[in-house]
């Protein structure tokens, strides 16, 4: 047991999740991260778990291990997601189901298990990651966007269900960031999205930690059920 704040971040092998894990570990958080495979990197204050976020038993085991080791969970950043960019007429059911399982059920499982631990101390901060492609209705992203829209609705209702235990729940949607997830998207499609933003640039990892800093601050105890999109998207 220790007095450091304990944070769970999903999808920490690379991209935004890795940035967040390294950032908060450097700042003194005890960070417990996960991905399906090994992280492939190490940092002080960081522990990696090999977990499929859509697997109920694996999620339960990970959160129980974190609670056992530290006696608390203060923050959850549900970042893990899968996307399969494809026209809906060419999207196999298996790919659609996997997106829903990882993006929606996976988010729900971590919220549920972590909230059980947070309730004891009547404190918690949950941030669920969504995307701007839902509100901008980007063609080619129907299932991914639908899954992330579900995350926003889920989070809004979760805020009401968990508020009485001092747990806040918010969503955050970044603009496109040059991660592996969008590396296969044609440049002209990315340019078209960026050109329609109020702030016409790609997102950065720092944009993400800026928003999570706000949501997870102890002072943000009256900020819940909200969604923040970057770049002027509403």
């Amino acid at each position: 047991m220790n007095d450091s704040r304990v944070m769970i971040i999903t999808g920490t092998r690379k991209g935004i999740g890795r940035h967040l894990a390294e950032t908060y570990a450097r700042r003194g958080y005890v960070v417990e991260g996960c991905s399906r495979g090994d992280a492939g990197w190490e940092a002080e204050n960081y522990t990696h778990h090999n977990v499929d976020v859509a697997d109920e038993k694996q999620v339960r085991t990970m959160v129980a291990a974190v609670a056992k080791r530290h006696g608390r969970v203060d923050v959850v950043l549900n970042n893990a997601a899968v996307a399969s960019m494809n026209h809906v007429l060419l999207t196999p059911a298996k790919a659609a189901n996997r997106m829903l399982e990882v993006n929606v059920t996976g988010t729900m499982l971590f919220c549920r298990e972590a909230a059980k631990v947070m309730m004891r101390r009547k404190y918690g901060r949950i941030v669920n990651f969504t995307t701007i492609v839902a509100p901008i209705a980007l063609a080619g992203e129907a299932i991914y966007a639908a899954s992330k829209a579900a995350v926003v609705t889920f989070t809004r209702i979760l805020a009401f269900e968990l508020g009485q235990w001092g747990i806040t729940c918010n969503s955050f949607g970044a603009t496109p960031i040059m991660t592996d997830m969008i590396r296969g998207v044609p440049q002209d499609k990315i340019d078209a999205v960026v050109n329609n933003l109020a702030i016409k640039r790609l997102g950065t990892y720092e944009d993400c930690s800026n928003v999570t800093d706000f949501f997870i601050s102890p002072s943000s105890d009256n900020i819940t059920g909200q969604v923040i999109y970057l770049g002027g998207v509403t």
Partner: protein
Amino acid sequence: MDRPTALKIVTACLKDGLEQAGAPIETIDEQTMIVGPEAVLDSIGVVSLIVDIEQKLQMDHDIAVTLASEKAMSQKNSPFRTVGVLASHVMTSIEEGQAS
């Protein structure tokens, strides 16, 4: 886990929950109603109780169990309806969890 231990855990968690809610009762026994018209808890109180029991099993006994399982939630008669029934459900859930 034997029945007296399960009963002790359920009773202790219910007692804590009622005290935290500012509504302690004099006697808690196997017949004390948890769900239904005569229940000593409201619906949120039941949620807290189930989570408290799961957490106590995990932290104090190293037993991971989900009391609100799909099977439990689809039963005609709630497995949470009285202290005694809930204690039996705790035992069954642990046994089923160990068997799976």
